[in-house]
Structures are given as C-alpha cells and as structure tokens.
C-alpha cells in the first residue's frame, strides 16, 4: 500500500505546488466518497482477516495466522487453479463470440438489432440458481453426464451478456466513416478489422472480458450444478472463500 501511495502522489503534488493549497472541488469530494463506498467493505474484511483471534474491525493483535491457514488448505489451492482455468477459457470464448455479434448488430436495422441484442442478455434475466438448474437438465439431456465441457458451456453462456453489452456500447459510438476510409485506400477487411476497428473498440472489449472473467471466477450456482464429480468438493469449498486474504471471512460468514 505504501509504495502505491508514493508512486501515485508526486505528479499531483508537483502540479499543484504553484498554488500551495487548494480546497478540493465538489467533484473530487463526491468521487472520494464514491470510491470509499466501493472499496470500504473490502478494506474492512481485509483488515479483519489480519486479526489474531476473533473478528473485529479495526483489527486487534495483528497476525497472518488466518492467511497462512487458508493457503495451506489443499482444497483452496486446487479450487483456485480449477476456477482460474475455467474462467480464462470461458471468458476468452464468450468475448470471441461477442465480437462478431456486436459488430454485426451495428450494421443491421436498428430496431431489430436492439431486440436481438436483448436475446443475448437472456441468461442475466433469469435468477442464476433457476437458470443453472434448467441448464443442468438440458446438458444432461444432450450429453448424458456432466463433464468439463458442460461446465465450460455453462460458464460461457452466463458470461456472454457482459462482453455483448460493453462492446455494443463502444460500437454504437464508432464512426463508420473511419472503416470506409480504410477500405477506400485499399485495406482489406481483415486489415481494416485488425488495424482500425479493433483499436477503436479496445476499451469495450477489455471491460467485457474483465466482467466475463470475474463473473465466471465468482460463479457459484452454475459450478455447483455442472461441475464433474471430481471437482465438486473443491468448487463448493471454494465458493465460500475466494481470496486468500479473506480466510477469516468464511468462518464468520458461516
């Protein structure tokens, strides 16, 4: 934490030195409050995990005991590995699926395009537990048993809405003239896509991938239904306890 503060502060100080002291603007105060609201609960839990014996905030008797205990748990490490692999594969796949859809919908008739893009929001609109149960039945009907493939499919379908939404947001603001310009100087479609379109929509693709990865990483309902038997213990255990730093939280939450 200290090193982060040191690296980020100097530019601000240098810029403001001329004016010596300046009251923060309304926007800065509002942003600070918003930021505290976002990170506050996590700081509390992180602090609580450092407690030597019982839950309290601010922590008394600092100790790393709980963290070490969490890291030594075998289930925890295997679970983390499985979750990471599933999340990486599923979010990459759903982002790749979302790209052509978002780009294609932009060129289509807008009214219908909007309705179609809602179709891809579908898995978000159904409560996750109910959807997981229904998906489990469908996959059992198709494959007969749950396997890694089933788990992967489940994670792709629940993470797809995020990249679809975020990429659609940036493609709507995209000026088609830029791509036409690339075409008019003779760039082929592949070239135009890689060197003109993709850099322009990068922020949406990144945001979508992050949302997808995190959703898959945090997912509980889909995993509990679709995991193959050999992963089940770890995933169930893992769902209670995601970050190593928060080993304590599990004990208190249960």
């Amino acid at each position, binding site marked *: 934490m200290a090193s*982060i503060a040191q690296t*980020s502060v100097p*530019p601000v100080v240098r810029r403001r030195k001329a004016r010596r002291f300046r009251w923060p603007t309304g*926007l800065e105060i509002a942003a600070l409050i*918003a*930021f505290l*609201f*976002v990170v506050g*609960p*996590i*700081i*509390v*839990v992180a602090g*609580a995990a450092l407690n030597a014996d019982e839950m309290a905030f601010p922590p008394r008797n600092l100790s790393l005991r709980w963290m070490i205990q969490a890291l030594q748990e075998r289930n925890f490490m295997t679970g983390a590995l499985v979750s990471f692999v599933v999340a990486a594969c599923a979010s990459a796949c759903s982002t790749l699926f979302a790209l*052509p*859809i978002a780009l*294609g919908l932009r060129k289509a008739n807008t009214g219908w395009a*909007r*309705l179609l893009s809602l*179709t*891809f*929001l*579908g898995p*978000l*609109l*159904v*409560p*996750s*537990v109910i*959807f997981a*149960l*229904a998906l489990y039945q*469908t996959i059992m009907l*198709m494959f007969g048993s749950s396997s890694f493939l089933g788990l992967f499919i*489940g994670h*792709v*379908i629940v993470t*797809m*809405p995020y990249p679809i*939404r975020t990429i*659609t*947001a*940036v493609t*709507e*603001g995209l000026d088609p003239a830029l791509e036409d310009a690339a075409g008019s*100087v*003779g760039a*082929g*479609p*592949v*070239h135009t896509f890689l060197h003109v379109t993709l850099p322009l929509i990068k*922020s949406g693709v990144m945001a979508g991938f992050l*949302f997808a990865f*995190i959703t898959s*990483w945090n997912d509980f309902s889909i995993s509990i239904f679709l995991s193959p038997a050999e992963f089940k213990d770890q995933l169930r255990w893992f769902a209670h*306890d*995601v970050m190593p730093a*928060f080993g304590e*939280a599990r004990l208190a*939450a249960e």
Partner: protein
Amino acid sequence: MSATPSLSQRIDVVAPENEGLWRLLSRCAMATPFVFVLVFFFGPLVWLVLTSLSTHELGSAPRLTFSLEHYRSYLGDPFFLINSVWTTVRLAVLSTLFALVIGYVLAYYIAELPVRQRGLLTSFTVVSLAVNIVIRVFGLNVLLTNNGLLNSSLIWLGLIDRPLRIMYTETGVLIGLVQIAVPYVVLPLIGMLASIDPALREAAASVGASKMRTFWTVTFPLSIPGVIAGTLIVFTLNAAAFAIPAMMGGGRVRMMGMMAYQQASINGNFPFAAAVGICLFLLSLIITIVYLYVVNRKFKAAR
C-alpha cells in the same frame, strides 16, 4: 515521402484477398454464437416453461399437465404481488439509479485523471469487483450493524442518539445492491468518457456555455451508450439477485430471485420456482425494452 512505397506495398498484399471467403467467414462467426445461445439459453428456457406448467407432488418428479396453477397462485395472490413483485421492481430500479449516479461521478473523475493514475484507480475498481459477493456483504455487515463502524462514528459525532437500524431492513438490501453494482457502471463509462474528444467540450466552453451546460449538452449525451451498457447489466443483475436480499435482508425482504431460490431448494417445489423465474424473466424483459425505447427516443436527436 518514405511512407508512400510501404503503403502501396501493403495495398498489393491486401488487395487480392478473397472477398467471398471473408464474407463466408464472418457469416460463420455470426452464426456460431447465435446457435450457441439458441441451444443453451432457449433450451433451458423451454425446460423452465414446461416445468412451470407441471404439477408439483411431494416426493415425486413434476408431472407435465399444462396447468397454470402456479402462475395463478403466484400472481393471483395480492400478498405475493405487493411483497415480492413490487419489492423487486422498486429495489432493482432504485439501486440502478443510485449506482448510476455514484458510478458516473467516479467514472467522470477517473476519466479526467492522467493515464497512470487512471490505471491505478481503474484496477482498484476491478479488484473490488473480483471479490466475492459473500465477502463484500460481510464487510458491509461489519460496517452497518448496530454497533458497527458507521453507527459508532455517528454517535460519537453526536448526530444520533440511538444506532440506526440498517441491517435486515430494505435500506440495508438497497445499500448492498448499490455497493455490488457500482463497478459495473464505472468500468464501461471510463472508456466511454475518456474517448470523448476534449475539443468538443472546449468548443462548447468557447461559445460561452457554462460547465454544467457543457456537461448536459455535450458530455452526457455522448456517454449514453456507456450508461445503457452499465444500467442494463446492473438492472438485470439486481432484479434477479438472491444472495444480497438473503444476507442483507435476513429473509424479511422478499425479492423474486430469493423466493424462487427458497421454493426450489428448501421446499423442493421446482414447478413453482420455475413459474416465479419465468415471471421475473418476463418482467425484466418488459422493463428493459421500455427503458431502451424511451432512452433511444430521447437521445436520438442528441447523437
């Protein structure tokens, strides 16, 4: 001058590309996700609809009888209508509004920062998103309970005499929903706001527009796609939420997602749970369509 030969060279490389092949490939790239969603979203949906039309008997599998009894007993009961449908709509809409305001302020501030600090604050937001809901709710719990940090500091400041009751009330659920939702609004907006050409704002200022007016007539309309992306994700997530109402509301705030979960897991009544799920799906879908329609009509002229 030196750029000219390399450009013409590139044209030679790219020009013979097969247009037809590219078109076929992009058709396939479009069709694959469509088929995927068709099978793995509409498949389960059909199963849900069929289950919701089945009869529930304790101890045996649901039997398909095409009866509407579950819908009738859910939607026909004023207790359910007020307690769960109205609570769900109200909390989902309110939490989306609050999350939008808080998230917009934060995203606006972050987007104005120099690149390095922007990256730092953005990654903090991402990290907070990556922490499991259970753990974040637990942190909120520590802050908001009767003898928690918020209440003790308010009492210390002399603002209140008795601790405010926040946990296990609707306000508590609302705070939980907003807390979970803010990062989903912030992330799409940062990219959107940072990509707005500063020249547009400068142009507005140079013709005498105040800061407020510049924001409402230039910046905000240009960020609308980001607003839509964030609010749609947040609204749908919160309408179907079950972990937060269960943990922050202590079972007293009955949102539809939680009801469906309880019916399925505790009572084992899958047909009823499926009926609640379908109702929630249709409700969110209608609200989303109306919302998109209104926003598009309102801001079409601005864009």
